[in-house]
């Protein structure tokens, strides 16, 4: 159901970005890149709230004609961005939330790998498979 999944480092460069192969990949790069503006804005607005009460899920970042862009930010300011086809109206907010949680868990697993240097691009088959499953699920 997701058409593009991206993991963005704290310093706002991509650690992982994958989109469905049928579409123009660059387009999603642009989409995700520009969505970071909104993520930044939301984070800075959230910064005032107490840290422990912070909601990691950022909600809909912005809708475009064809897609909806959702965001999620971990406590270490690693961002997850998911682009969803806007024609898919069956998708509920809660489902998006759970998808992000899955993504977060998988990302945590990647970080637990002693051979992974934080800050490097993610080349993990397990993570890849998880993302694939998220892209395949409904569509």
């Amino acid at each position: 159901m997701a058409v593009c999944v991206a993991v963005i480092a704290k310093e706002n460069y991509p650690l992982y970005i994958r989109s469905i192969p049928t579409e123009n990949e660059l387009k999603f790069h642009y989409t995700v890149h520009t969505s970071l503006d909104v993520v930044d804005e939301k984070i800075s607005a959230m910064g005032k709230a107490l840290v422990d009460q912070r909601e990691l899920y950022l909600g809909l970042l912005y809708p475009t004609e064809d897609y909806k862009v959702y965001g999620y930010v971990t406590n270490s300011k690693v961002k997850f961005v998911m682009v969803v086809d806007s024609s898919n109206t069956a998708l509920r907010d809660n489902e998006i939330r759970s998808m992000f949680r899955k993504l977060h868990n998988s990302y945590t697993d990647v970080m637990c790998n002693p051979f992974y240097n934080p800050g490097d691009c993610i080349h993990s088959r397990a993570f890849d498979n998880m993302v694939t499953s998220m892209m395949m699920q409904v569509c």
Partner: protein
Amino acid sequence: MSVPDYMQCAEDHQTLLVVVQPVGIVPEENFFRIYKRISTVSQINVRDSQRVLYIRYRHHYPPENNEWGDFQTHRKVVGLIIITDCSSAKDWPQTFEKFHLQKEIYGSTLYDSRLFVFGLQEEVAEQPRTDVAFYPSYDECETVEKRIEDFIESLFIVLESKRLDRATDKSGDKIPLLCVPFEKKDFVGLDTDSRHYKKRCQGRMRKHVGDLCLQAGMLQDSLVHYHMAVELLRSVNDFLWLGAALEGLCSASVIYHYPGGTGGKAGARRAQGSSLPTEASNRHRPGALTSNGINADTSAEIGRAKNCLGPEDIIDKYKEAISYYSKYKNAGVIELEACVKAVRVLAIQKRSMEASEFLQNAVYINLRQLSEEEKIQRYSILSELYERIGFHRKSAFFKRVAAMQCVAPSISEPGWRACYKLLLETLPGYSLSLDPKDFSKGTHKGWAAVQMRLLHELVYASRRMGNPALSVRHLSFLLQTMLDFLSDQEKKDVTQSLENYTSKCPGTMQFITLPEGLRLPPVPFTKLPIVRSVKLLNLPVSLRPQKMKSLLGQNMSAKSPFIYSPIIAHNRGEERSKKIDFQWVQGDVCEVQLMVYNPMPFELRVENMGLLTAGVEFESLPAALSLPAESGLYPVTLVGVPQTTGQITINGYHTSVFGVFSDCLLDNLPGLKTNGCAVEVIPALPRLQISTSLPRSAHTLQPSSGDDISTSVSVQLYNGETQQLVIKLENIGTEPLEKLEVTAKTVNSKEKLYGEFLSWKLEDTLSQFPLKPGKIATFNVNIKVKLDFSCQENLLQDLSDDGISISGLPLSSPFRQIVKPRVDSKPINATESGKVGDFSHVKTLEAILNFKYSGGPGHADGYYRNLSLGLHVEVEPSVFFTHVSTLPATSTRQCHLLLDVFNSTEHELTVSAKNNEDLVLHAGECQRMAIQVDKFNFESFPDSPGERIQFANPKQLEEERQQAKGLEINSKLDVCWKIISFNIWEASVEGVLNQLVLEHLQLAPLQWVYLLLCSRDLHYINFYWKGDSLASIEEHFLIIMPYLVATVFI
């Protein structure tokens, strides 16, 4: 209404629109000069009141927009200023006619107009008119500003009268229905007497009066009118005008709240009541709320509380207004402008998220088919607005879209220059700088795909702009910084196009300065090839300078009085890490080795690769190399010649790859291994080349030799042969050769060598010195090989068992016990016994001749060079003494030495000894040769120096002594052999003579006749001892028995 004004902001609602236009032929430059001066008069305090009039000047305004003037009065052109050029009085009527024609365009809405005529004196006109001003030239028009002020005053009068006229309209009177252009046909045949219609008229009129009040500087009144209008229009569901009323309300509130203006143009907007001192400070603080009391009108202050909208309300009302506008397709421009205005307000309120929603909405507002230019404008303004709310990435995105629009295929004349300029502006949004230094630290982190796209576009735009240097620079940058992200095919494509560009315009190391003032730093290709290590190489051994050891010792003693100090050692350690402990020589080719590799999937051709140095004049000799695809580490040696002396620092290297010249500094290379880059260059030294009369040797000297040999020669000699080696010394350097020292060292000491192996006379050579460059001197060395001529040990040992020499007398038994172990312990014989079994065994001798030489300025500095010549001599066996024995001669002072001589050569040879006849030996023949010799008195030999005795053990001493004896005997014997037709060569018996034979040859120290009862023969008893003194025989016999060797001849 089709042309949106993206620059609009809320404050524009309070301005009067004045159009300034040229008529006839007015040079653009002059027009804009006057326009600028007119524009400075943008606000006027009217009639000493608190009211301020704001003017908005436009030099271009579409008349169809003017038709919306009733809807929002700030869209109405109320003033027209015509600027015209009139050179002669004849043209005047024509010009005046044009003025009137121009007035017609905006005629319906104009309050007043002016004509400025340049180039004519006032006298020309028939009668003075208030709306015409004459100026002799564009430079002499001091009164322009004054005239504009007067003009605005007149506009104000009209405005004020209109306002009062409309405001006092009684409800009983028939109120005309104001409408927007597209509404006109909708109201045809409508019942004009219905309440609904009347209310609509009232509401619209209220709104219109509100607009006029706002323009006339009566903010509070306008708020009241807007509120009333909102209520009226809401009740009749007149949504378009309700939206306009709400927007008016918002504008008035914004003007009240943000006197600094929302347009972001500093100083463009002024606060209300410009006479107030706080105005100046507020103006530069966009977003600053006005403090209470700015407005002196107390009545207005009372009304403010309930009429003026709060900051939150403003946005809500804007949202509402926009939602009403959106109901009308024809009001798209109004909606769009309202969005833009709202975004500007939100930007000041720092509410980016909401602002982005407004912008998102604005993006989707579909106007009619836009022209390309309008599209560009639209995207640019979106970009600007996003920038303002801090969405840099989004801003960059739209700017890029705008840039692409500039060169859309549908445009007949693509604006590549504009496109390029816009693209450059997007760089920060994509966190891309064009300085490669920003990328040299660690791995590149960024949106590679997006950045690469942008760089490609920059390259293309700059190429189409007709600036190949620029495209080369961008392409180099792309290749350098994005190398890790390019696929193999992309790498190929990029380099291909780079080569195409550089064929026209090679890449340089200069900064490229753009007209916009941006400086593009050069892009050195530090990754093409990647350099992994830089190592300065020492000179080859033969050219390596060496410091003459001074008596004072190392410079260490000069530095510090301490032999060791941890502090100094530490310092020196650091120094050493940077500086290298060898020297280069001025004028000699020096080498630096780089380990490079090619990251490209194809062969990389690097041309003109050389060193960049500092400190010393250095002539770099560039190299060209070709690295195979994805090569592993590949050594490259860069060479150069230092021209002066001093400390030289290798800073980097320069290359030319794909036609791009790069200077790569080592400091900027990540992960570089180096052994230091500073080395000392010492003054020039001469260079010596040696050539010899002998053929060069393929043999390399054994590694144990320790020295590096520049050349080595080989020669094959028979044992005992002597040959002269002629060495030519040529000075191939540029400095005179002044000093020469020669030393020799025999390397292979396995073979026992007799006599002097190498001998020379240096004086002959030195007489030719100093040797000028290019001159040759000769030097002769005699090679004399004299190895052991003996044969196997076992053969020699036979002697001791020979009945001739030793009898089996029991008397001698104590001596024999002593003799035996001594024979066995002979190490030389023992080891050789196996080897020498084969007679044709070739032995080798190796020696090194060292030439220490110096001259020129380097000599003055105490440096010299060392050249080594390796000498490899193969010694073929000639004759062998297979058996040695002695026979007593007639005299006791003489004896016969019997030598079994074996010819191991393939030639017939003769052997001769002193006083003897020649013995002819055929190849492989063995014959006995008897030589009569005088016995030797070894005691006459000087004993070894006393100290030696102390240190050496008795056995060594013994051997030494024996050697000396051998020498003595040999010189007496003078055994020679000769191959027919060859020279006479010496043969030595030294090695052959073992202990036993020596004893035979020795003259007895004591001789006496001892009569034995059982025999009538004379018996000689030979004594030999190691002691020093001989006290008495008896004593001697008793005391030194263990050392005694006695042989009894019967």
